[in-house]
């Protein structure tokens, strides 16, 4: 039986919708950061941006498959390569121009241009297996915002990385759940918790870094006289508005994508994905503690001398196999032959023999052990 993909269950749909929200939040955060950094930020413009991106994503997630369905594999690859090359060229050109001229006005225009491009990428979000287009463009917007320095750059970098992490985590879960007939697995909460736990050290680290060392802007930027420099309190107000708009847009995206999203994936023919029947979970049996025999008196001293020599030999790089007998080990051990034979004989008698060794034998074993340790030389440096 080579099965085709079962329709995604409710759990997968929830994760798909959450992934769309994460993508939207990342897009809006990056675009808003770049716009706030380089253009006059008022509620109307940010609202327009939030609406535009939300609509683009909803349209892309809902109807992007129509474009995808009409393309063959080769055409899709050709389109992807051409788009990537053109986009890469545009990014290099834009950044070179911005850094070369250091004109705030030009950076503002580029922020607007890449915001529009972000909407275009979201429209094509469902084209292909990954969402690389919107991710790449969002990072370009974050880079543009970083050049501004200050709170804007700190928020752009920290938030961008966090949202990217959430998007990747949700995308991974959605991808896996879509590939298998999973049934009733609800992983949304677990996915978010795992992502948050992994992202927390990175985000906290970046935050501490930016608090201790506020980000500096790109040196020698020329601002137009008519455009006043944005103050930090204005930026904070802009971010408050941004959060409200992002929440509203996210709610819209979540609801609509859950309503309209349909799965279209198909599996390669030679791999069948099968449902698993889960039995009861049971506790693993406790591993039995390794019984170590206790040796006392002269017997113990001889055994300890031998074990000490083996430990010393291991430090010098000697490796013995469990199948080797003490005499095999002695034959391969690069130590002085006389003490080695003495110690091996005494060890075999003490370890396996019935009689308790004498005090003299114990002393002889310890002396032989010391002689061998000296003969083995220095520790091998790893």
């Amino acid at each position: 039986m080579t099965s085709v993909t079962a329709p995604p269950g409710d759990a997968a749909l929830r994760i798909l919708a959450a992934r769309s929200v994460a993508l939207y939040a990342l897009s809006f955060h990056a675009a808003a950061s770049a716009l706030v950094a380089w253009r006059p930020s008022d509620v109307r413009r940010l609202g327009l941006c939030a609406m535009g991106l939300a609509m683009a994503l909803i349209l892309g997630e809902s109807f992007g498959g129509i474009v995808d369905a009409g393309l063959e594999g080769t055409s899709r690859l050709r389109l992807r390569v051409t788009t990537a090359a053109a986009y890469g060229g545009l990014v290099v050109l834009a950044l070179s121009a911005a850094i070369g001229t250091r004109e705030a006005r030009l950076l503002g225009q580029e922020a607007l241009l890449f915001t529009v491009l972000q909407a275009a990428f979201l429209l094509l979000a469902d084209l292909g297996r990954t969402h690389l287009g919107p991710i790449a463009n969002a990072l370009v917007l974050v880079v543009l915002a970083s050049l501004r320095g200050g709170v804007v750059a700190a928020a752009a970098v920290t938030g961008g990385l966090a949202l990217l992490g959430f998007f990747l985590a949700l995308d991974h879960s959605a991808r896996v759940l879509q590939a298998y007939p999973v049934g009733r697995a609800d992983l949304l909460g677990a996915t978010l918790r795992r992502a948050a736990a992994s992202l927390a050290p990175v985000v906290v680290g970046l935050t501490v870094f930016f608090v201790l060392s506020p980000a500096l802007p790109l040196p020698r930027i020329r601002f137009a006289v008519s455009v006043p420099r944005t103050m930090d309190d204005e930026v904070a107000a802009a971010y408050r508005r941004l959060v409200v708009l992002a929440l509203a847009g996210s709610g819209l995206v979540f609801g609509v994508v859950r309503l309209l999203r349909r799965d279209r994936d198909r599996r390669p023919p030679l791999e069948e994905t099968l449902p698993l029947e889960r039995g009861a979970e049971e506790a693993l049996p406790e591993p039995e503690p390794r019984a170590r025999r206790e040796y006392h008196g002269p017997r113990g001293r001889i055994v300890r001398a031998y074990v000490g020599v083996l430990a010393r030999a291991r430090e010098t790089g000697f490796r013995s196999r469990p199948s080797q007998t003490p005499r095999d080990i002695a034959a391969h051990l690069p130590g002085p032959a006389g003490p080695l034979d003495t110690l091996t004989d005494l060890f075999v008698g003490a370890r396996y023999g019935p009689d308790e060794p004498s005090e003299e034998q114990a002393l002889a074993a310890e002396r032989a052990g010391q002689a061998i340790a000296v003969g083995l030389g220095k520790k091998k440096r790893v």
Partner: protein
Amino acid sequence: MARSRTDTYRRFLYAALGFAALLGAALGVEALMALAVGGFALLFVSWGQARRGRAGLRVAREVYPSAFEDDAVPVSLVLDNRSRRTSWLVEIRDSFGPAVADRQALLEPGPLRGARRQRLVYRTACSRPWGIYAVGPLTLVASDPFGLFHAERSVPDVTPFAVFPRVWSVAGIEKLGARPSLSPREVTSTRPGQSLAYLGVRDFRSGDDLRRIHWPATARRGAPVVKEHEVDLVPYFTLLVDLDRSHRAGTGLKSTIEYLVRTSACLVWTAASRGDLVQVLGEGARTLEVPPGAGTLHATQALYELIQVQQEGRLSLLDLVEQHRMHIPAGSTAALLSGSMFLDLERLEEILGALQARGVRPVVVLVNKDSFLPIDRRAVPRQEAEAQARAATTLLRSRAIPGAILSAEHDLEAQLGRNDLFEER
């Protein structure tokens, strides 16, 4: 499994973060460098999590090692999480040889808590024809929460799995020996034994079971007398299979080896099902010798030997019968399954006569190899083949020996299921 993962994001992050680091260093923009450092830290954390996620996981397979063609097979997997962390989205890949698909991809979505064991079952079908297949290896894949890194562990748990040919009841064989009853042990002989059939009474001897004392007769005679019963005769079926390499013809499902193995399997299974002691003898690339035995387990062993035969022998069927004549007990049934109709009929008659003289009931099944696609030698002309078939039929009829000829144009299942399979010729 390939659909569930992508390396695109990871490669993109390597490139983009590297570019950001270079740009930040060149322009002296700390935020860009922080972006690069944070991104690489995220990648590093992900890499470690994928490795740790895999480290504590162990998987083992439990599956009954044989099934018939088209059977649904439940395969149990035992997934152990020996770490203290909870595992999520563990992908398992198995390779069940008898299935059409190369791989079986499975997902344990989790949560699988630390120090816990989860038993999982997937069901697949033996879609490939009879033979010995490999099951395994198993592959475990764990990922980090972002799906950037995938840590794989291959478990070299490769075990053989036997797929037996589908068996159909050979209707004709039921009539041989006229014992299609529910009890397979009803034939008895008038010798003292352990059957339920009453033979008579005799004087008590030391060691006789006291429960066997016939009290009325003992009272009449004044000395202890015990009851005697007849001995059970166990029905005995011997299959002699022709694995002579000169009788190879055809390919795939329409080949002499296919017909020989399937017919053998059906005869063995039918005989074993009705309670016969069954033995199988043949001489292929290696000796096929299934000693006499009864029951399903023995029949399964016989099938296991049959699916490993190769038509590479150099001993003719008639020589095989001569060689093993002493192993065919009196009163038993001996089925001679030949890969060709072109046997030495005079010698065949002699052998069949000798078997009948010893009280053996012979059955002859001939596979018309010339009806299959010729491989290494030309097919005999049709008229010649028809003449040989008539001659063989006449011989069998003259000695009242049940026989059948199977050809490529026959549907084997329908043919073996016919009630008059051994009657019309």
